[in-house]
């Protein structure tokens, strides 16, 4: 199987869909593990799709807004490395359905 070089920073914000075309979210963070000298990718965190929602999240966490309870709406999903198909880095696709992804609570 061929290996390819992918620039991780270009994956950010890319919309991820599952094989049936349903939206899973946008790649927000990539978790890895350091094993001795190797850094190995473990999972991809997919975040809310709306750009405004993502930009607003840290702002809403500020104390004047926290009182209004606006900060709790953020949600996300985690895709393990083997659940993500990056053969076309511009169009990441899940190898499973959206429902099989673990949900993350912020």
């Amino acid at each position, binding site marked *: 199987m061929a290996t390819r070089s992918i620039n991780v*920073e270009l994956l950010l914000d890319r919309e991820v869909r599952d094989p049936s075309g349903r939206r899973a979210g946008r790649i927000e963070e990539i978790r890895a593990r350091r094993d001795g000298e190797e850094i190995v990718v473990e999972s991809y965190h997919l975040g809310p799709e709306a750009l405004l929602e993502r930009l607003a999240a*840290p*702002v809403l*966490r*500020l*104390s*004047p807004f926290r*009182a209004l309870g606006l900060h709790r709406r953020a949600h996300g999903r985690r895709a393990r490395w083997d659940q993500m198909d990056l053969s076309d880095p511009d169009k990441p696709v899940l190898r499973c359905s959206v429902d099989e992804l673990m949900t993350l609570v912020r």
Partner: protein
Amino acid sequence: MKKLLEITLGIVTSIGGFLEVGSLATSAQAGAAFGFQLIWAIVLGTVCLIFLVEMSGRLAAVSKQTLAGAMRDRFGYPFFLVPLVAMSVLALLVMASELGGLCLALQLVTGISFPWWAPVGAFAAWLLLWKGTFSVVEKGASLLGLVTIVFVIAAFKLHPDWGRAAHAALPSMPRHEPMRYWFIAVSILGASIAPYLLYFYSAGAVEDKWNESDVPVNRVSATLGMSFGGGLAIAVLIVAALVFVPRGIRIERFDQIALMLTSVMGRWGFFLFAAALGIACFGAMLEIALSVAYLVAQGFGWKWSEDARPRDAARFSLVYTVTLVGGALIVMLGVDPLAITLMSMALTGALLPIAIVPFLILMNDSRYVGKYGNGWISNAVVCAIVGLAFVLAVVSIPLEVMGS
């Protein structure tokens, strides 16, 4: 004892750095046009600045990162370009204003027309940055800046109605020319809340290797220093009000402001005004050039250090050089210095959210400020005042531009 000395020095350097052409021009305009009425704008601007300066020191002390560096660190590269470009362009305009002020001061004293002074002034500032260290720059310019106390002396000599002045610390609606009133109000806010000060202050704190134990001292020196600075601006406003209003003088040109002190102090007043203006502007030029260099160098991870020789921080030195040259070019184009000063102050008000929102997020992120995060008061006060400045700017700038 050492702490006391540190606090005093901190306060003194804060005062000296506060009054520059923006505060001077906007306060003088406010006094001449509306008497004491706009004192509340100076109060609000100063209060907001106190919070912001204290925050920038605290960020540096706890995270050991500068504001610019922390912004790139936390928000990443494409986002960082927005404050980088906006604040750099703004700083260039403010730099041109300050250089214009310096040139005017030199013109007043020598009679030589002011665009000729632009390359001279810019070169002098550049030389000081090239050969000097951070301490020399910061403390030297600020100690000399104490000459601005002459405005406080003048204010007292005019025996103002202090009760009326205190009353004006509360916001009030304009009784005439509302658009001009709000435009000057937002210019005052923009002159007080200068973002370049924050980049400069946090870089200094990191270069001086502050840590958590410096947080309380920083709180005191930021509060007292910026308060005294605000007091200076109020003094300028009071003097302008008492000198220009009775004579029915509207400030249309920069050199009219120079008359402020002559009626109170005679010939001495004239020279003292020129000295105060020149020194204050010179100090501001140094801070602005360094702030842009800090923004760029820290944002891209280059070596940045005012203490280092230029060859050891090559790109950093290049950036402040280019900034000074850029400011000089703008002044030599012959742009009206008063107009560019007022407009850049108002524009600052409009662009404040770009600088302040990321800053506030950092100040509430425990990964950067640990246990020293902002309380809700800090967040609320800054949000409110910056929000006000933004709204005023968006409303009044277009109308002012259309009106003139």
